[in-house]
Structures are given as structure tokens and as C-alpha cells.
């Protein structure tokens, strides 16, 4: 499931900095459908949802994907899938927001691979959220979210 990402070292020009512009084109990280969309970069395998992130050569995991390692500034990375299960570190149900309709729930989810991701949360009837509680990734083809695990 691993492959070399597009943010490849060969894109980086190694000659004099003023020689050519090819290696310093801006990242298209806001383009619709680009790798790095925090809401939509996921995979479904066998009915289970995984976040499509990356791991840098330094060992640092990342989701969403990003061009450079936040520890070393280097681009070498391979794609890595995270999930489908994680632990809810903390959460809130938001009742006032300038960015979307309320209420909605968000929380930090810790994955075993030392990765923490801010997730949208959906709470099925009869289930409740708890710090350190298990959650599982879900998706509908366009977006992903987490739900608390357990008996409804």
C-alpha cells in the first residue's frame, strides 16, 4: 500500500538558486481534490475507512499530507494509511461557529502510529463520547468522520 509521493526530491533544483524557477513552483495544496485535503483524502478497503496520509523519511507521520516534514523540512515520504480505529483524546460539541452550521462535534483522535488528527465526529443514537474512548473511521464516498465504537 506504500508508494512514493508526488512531492519528490527530483522536483527540487540543486543548482544555483537564481538559475531556474522549475524547482520552486508553489505547492498547489489548496487545489480542489489535491492530496492534503483534510476532509477528503481517505481510502476504503474491505468496507473499512483509512486516512491516506504519509510518513516522512524522518519517521514523522502526517495527515493530511504535506510537502515537507515538519521536523526536518525534507520532502522524502511514502504514503501510509492510518486507521481504521483510534482513541478519542478530547472532543467538543460546538454551538457557535462562523465557519459551518451548528451544532457539530470535533475531536482529536490518536492513532497507534503516533499520529493525532482533528476529526469530525458523528454520534449514533444511544452512543456517547468519552475521552480515551475508542472511535472508528467512517466515510460516505466524499468525506470521512469518526464514530464512537460500542453497542448502540
Amino acid at each position, binding site marked *: 500500500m506504500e508508494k512514493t509521493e508526488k512531492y519528490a526530491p527530483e522536483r527540487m533544483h540543486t543548482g544555483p538558486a537564481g538559475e531556474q524557477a522549475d524547482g520552486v513552483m508553489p505547492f498547489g495544496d489548496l487545489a480542489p481534490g489535491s492530496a*492534503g485535503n483534510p476532509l477528503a483524502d481517505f481510502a476504503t478497503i474491505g468496507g473499512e475507512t483509512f486516512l491516506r496520509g504519509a510518513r516522512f523519511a524522518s519517521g514523522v507521520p502526517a495527515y493530511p499530507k504535506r510537502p515537507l516534514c515538519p521536523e526536518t523540512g525534507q520532502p522524502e515520504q511514502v504514503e501510509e494509511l492510518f486507521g481504521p480505529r483510534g482513541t478519542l483524546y*478530547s472532543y467538543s460539541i*460546538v454551538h457557535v461557529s*462562523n*465557519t459551518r452550521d451548528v451544532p457539530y462535534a*470535533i475531536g482529536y483522535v490518536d492513532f497507534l502510529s503516533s499520529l493525532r488528527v482533528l476529526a469530525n465526529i458523528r454520534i449514533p443514537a444511544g452512543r456517547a463520547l468519552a475521552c480515551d474512548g475508542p472511535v472508528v473511521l467512517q466515510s460516505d464516498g466524499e468525506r470521512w468522520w469518526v464514530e464512537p465504537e460500542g453497542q448502540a
Partner: protein
Amino acid sequence: MSGTVIIGAGMIPMGRHRNSSYPGLAVPAVSTALSSAGVSPAEVGYVACGHAFGGMLTGQRIVKDLGIGGVPVINVDNACSGGAAALQLASMAVVEGITDVALAIGVDKLTQFGGGTLPLVEEDPEVRSGMVMPALYAMRARRFLHERGEDSATLAEVSVKARRHGAANPFAQYRKVVTSEEVLAARMIADPLTLLMCCPTGDGAAAIVVASQDRWRKTGVRGAHIRASVLHSGKATTGFRNMLRPEITIHSANEAYEAAGISPEDIDIIELHDAFSIAELIYYEALGLCPEGDAAALLKGGHTTYGGKVVVNPSGGLIAKGHPVGASGVAQAVEVFWHLTGQAGNRQVEAARFGLCHVTGGGISGMDHGACTIHLLETARKRKAR
């Protein structure tokens, strides 16, 4: 920052000043600061203006109305730390010998957004996922309640104290005391934080005049030494982070204490970044006021109000005094300066010698906060002539 002295300060009452421009907010504060310092506009050799939402050339738009020009004017955006960062720059200008007298301004007008949550940078991944500032602090609060076995009443007690302090402060946006029951019954903003556990939307401005030791000695005004001025940026991680242990504040505080040669026990008065009630509890521990795990007991024991070990947020803090983002760092220093120089009126902390100002600036994904600024001030005493 040895060698720099705050010699004058001014602030307008925080509130909703919808009919005021940025200069309209800031000029009265600057005029007060200059007159209290006994300094004319022509003597100001450097200006740093902190703001987050003022637009281009905010500092120049302010000081041109006072006859200040032809000198460096720097505009600083560091979110909530913008004003405090401006104070650091003003102090550095004096330390570096650029000028004998520098001016720090903090100003912002949040009513321009009409209310609701603070507009964050929408290209940030967590903001695109629904992050707003109350939610960030709410997650801290949720984790605090989970780990410490506390309930929301503890969060409410922070607001009760803040409003009690703010009631005595004529510069506070809210001067009405509230009960714990009222705080808990207020409408929910981001569970578990209710409206009265959150800082309000408001406008404000504050200003400080910083001078060299020599310049201060020539004046007849009371002053406060800047014993330490520390500014840190956040360090990003994609991994796990203890939300109850804000390392940017811990590191900044330790560096400030070391620079000043004092310890947390020496501090008499603190203005800290209580944008939401949970923050005050977390920062008790981060600033070294108590061991990790003892924040709730410190609050409930009355150790952080008048008569306690240290008076935290005598102004009412950001919850009661108000939090016009870029203004807050300077406003905190104004409040502490007034206490250290015996100018705080009915809310005066008696015999205060050392004061600490703490303000962070967030939030962006992967960081505890984007910025943290700490200033340590000490009452300045002139040597007697032999």
C-alpha cells in the same frame, strides 16, 4: 531587557465601540501614555503597533494624528500576542540604542466582525475541519475534567473570580459580578464552555512608553523595570500532545524567570491569558504557581485573588476586562504597571513589586499556540543622591 523602564501607560475602557476607528480607539490611549510619562510626541523615536485585524499601516494611521512621524513605525501581527510582541520590539529599540523613548501600542476592533467566533485563517487544515478557538479550549477543558476528576463548577469558579475582579476595574468590559450558577446556566458555546466562561467580543486599545534608564532618571515619574521580555513561537508536531501541559508557556516562563533572576514565588501580581476559563487553570501550573495537578486547589483555596499568594488577573482578565486580541498584551502590561506604581485605584494590589504578563497567540494546527510572550516587570526605584 535590563536597562529599559516603562514610564507611562494608557488604556481606554474595553467594550463595544462600533463608532470608533482604529485611530479613534488608540489615540486616547497613546495620549494618556505620553502625558503620564511626561513625554512629548516629538521625543518618541520608535513605534511598534500590535494588532491582528487593523489592516495596512495601522500604527501609522494612529500616530500621524499625534504628530509622530519620520521615525520607524512597525506593525506587528502575532495574533493575541501582537501587542506584547510590540512591547518587546519597543524595549529592544531602547536596548539597541535606536532611541531613548519608544512607544508600544496594542489595538483591535472585533465588533467589525459582528460577533461570533474569531475569524481564523481558513487555509489551515484544522480550521477547514471545523476548528474555532472556543472548541480548542473546550477540548482542553474536557481533557482537564477527565484527568483531574473535576466538574464544570471548577471552570465556573474562574469566571466568578474574574467578574469579581472586573467589577472594581473601570476599564473592564464587564463589571457585573456573577454566581457559579449563572455561569453554568449560560448558553453553551463549545461544550463544556458556556458563554460566561469565554472572553467577550470587544474593542480596545492600550499604549506604553518605554524609556532608557537615563531618560527615566531625568523624569519625575514612577516607573517599572522590564526585567525580562520573552517571545517564543510554537513548535509543530503531528503527534500526541498533552493539552494540559502547554510547553510554549512553560518554556517561555522558565526563560523569563531565569533572565530576571526570580522565581514564581516572588511574583505579586499576574495578568495571564484567560481567553477561556480553562486557560487560567492550565497556566497556573505552566507558570509554576503550583505543582502539576494542583491548579483547581490553588483556585478554590483563594490563593490567586486578593489576600492570596498572588493576585491573578486583578483587571478581571480577558474574561471580564475584555480581549480585543492585538490590544491585550499591551493592556496587560498597562494593568501591571499601574499596580507596580501604585496607580490602580480601588483594585490596587498592595505592596506589589514583581508582576508578570503572559499572553499566547493561537491557533494553528499542530501547535500548542503560535506565539507566547511573557514580560516580567519590577517596580523601579531611583537611587538616592548622596
